[in-house]
């Protein structure tokens, strides 16, 4: 009765070996999509089955896991994946970016700079950056093999012709190590510069599409652009309403049905950290709390 129903971190050891081999190959060829025998996971495709498998393969008992979804530690997806590993691997979990050794993420890179002992695991829906321009898989593979990336610029050209600027706001294509063009998963292009020369290892897992790719630490990652239309990270021009941060990526939150909205950091850990350090934004409740506390004490 006490025998565990499944192995440490859910996947059996042979599966983990298979995934680790794919990961090693991916690290050896930065930006190259390595096929792997993706398994069924106890969650639907689109909820991070690729990321979960990569995390399961690299997780050790000493690791501290953080899971974020759109920057937030407390959404359904983030909480359930965190609980999944807390239960199946018994690893420590955290919401702090600095304390984590493995961070699984969907659609964001934490605002706090990553360090050398961390691994960032991305959940990827569609790993092929050329997919919507060239539907044939045989052809896209050949294009990667021969480094024929003119088509990627056709997409950017279309953006400028239609909107007057490069309107691609997320999943903005990058060139890794001056060789492979890669889809950074649907992170906002605001996060693209963080991938360049990052001290942490970045792994990308696409479960449904059965691909793993990687950016090793300290690798050059360049966002594609035109000379006369250079890459520009986009950010809504406002401070965070809660912590007042001027340089973080913001979520727009609709607060009533009369058009009111607030802009807050999408990275909840970063925002909470700043508030704890005494930074306040225009809509922060902290001053009132302090006042109420003061009145209660006085």
């Amino acid at each position, binding site marked *: 009765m006490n025998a565990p129903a499944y192995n440490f971190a859910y996947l059996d050891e042979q599966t983990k070996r298979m995934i680790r081999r794919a990961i090693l190959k991916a690290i050896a060829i930065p930006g190259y999509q390595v096929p792997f025998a993706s398994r069924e996971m106890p969650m639907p495709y689109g909820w991070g089955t690729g990321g979960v498998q990569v995390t399961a393969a690299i997780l050790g008992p000493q690791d501290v896991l953080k899971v974020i979804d759109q920057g937030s530690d407390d959404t359904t997806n983030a909480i359930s994946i965190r609980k999944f590993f807390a239960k199946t691997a018994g690893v420590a979990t955290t919401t702090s970016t600095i304390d984590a050794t493995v961070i699984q993420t969907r659609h964001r890179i934490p605002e706090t700079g990553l360090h050398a002992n961390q691994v960032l695991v991305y959940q990827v829906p569609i790993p092929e950056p050329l997919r919507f321009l060239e539907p044939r898989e045989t052809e896209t593979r050949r294009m990667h093999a021969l480094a*024929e990336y*003119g*088509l990627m610029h*056709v997409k950017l*050209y*279309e953006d*400028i*012709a*239609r909107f007057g600027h490069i309107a691609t706001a997320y999943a903005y294509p990058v060139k890794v190590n001056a060789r492979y063009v890669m889809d950074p998963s649907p992170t906002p292009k605001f996060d693209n510069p963080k991938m360049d020369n990052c001290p942490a290892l970045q792994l990308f897992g696409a479960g449904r599409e059965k691909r793993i790719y990687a950016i090793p630490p300290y690798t050059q990652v360049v966002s594609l652009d035109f000379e*006369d239309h250079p890459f520009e990270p986009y950010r809504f021009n406002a401070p965070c309403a809660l912590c007042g941060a001027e340089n973080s990526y913001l979520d727009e939150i609709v607060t009533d049905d009369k058009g009111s909205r607030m802009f807050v950091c999408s990275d909840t850990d970063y925002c909470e950290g700043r508030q704890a350090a005494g930074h306040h934004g225009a809509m922060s409740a902290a001053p009132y709390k302090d006042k109420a506390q003061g009145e209660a004490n006085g």
Partner: protein
Amino acid sequence: MADLLETDQPLLIANALSKSYGRIVACRDVSFALYPGEVLAIVGESGSGKSTLLQMLSGQLAASGGQVSYRMRDSVTRDLASLGEAERRLLFRTDWGFVHQDPAQGLRMAVSAGANVGERLMAVGWNHYGRIRESASDWLARVEIDVARIDDAPRTYSGGMRQRLQIARNLVTEPRLVFMDEPTGGLDVSVQARLLDLLRNLVAELHLAVVIVTHDLAVARLLSHRVMVMKGGRVIETGLTDQVLDDPREPYTQLLVSSILPP
């Protein structure tokens, strides 16, 4: 003097080209040399092996026998079969053009005309939006497409415009050799005439070598310098266009020529 040397040597040489599919022989023992600035028409009825020959010449289909050599921009003549895939593809999008009968095959129907023309430039490393666009509008004007439609997708274009756009897309990298597979097929007569007129001017102006496959002798007469008549996979007659069309020697060619309705 340099020009003389340039035109002295053949650009494309076919040597005993054959293609068979099992027992069916699609094309047998075709040899010719094409010089810079020369337009060669391959005429013949459906199933005579014209398109098979064109595909072999352009390196899209491996020949069962014989070889195709091409004089590269560095003046070295090389066997196409000895080129790596990367080199062949580079050749295809820089020094060569291929005009399909159906523009949908040669164009990206969902992206704008400007991007269609600019794609080859971006593929060879152009990285300046303004210059790509300038070059694209320049080429649209040269093929008589209203520059105001540069941002429209070719699926909103008429058949004749699509074909002209396809030509612009192929010529933007200033190729030396263009393959054309029935470029006027499926167009009405007045649009055909305009397209042929345009092609003839461009060919002369850019000193293009062209291999054009057609079953329309009028197209051959208007565009080409030389004609090759094919039947059952063989070349049965070859010579200067006027000579072959005005004074056909082979019975089959005589039949072809006489089956044109008198104007």
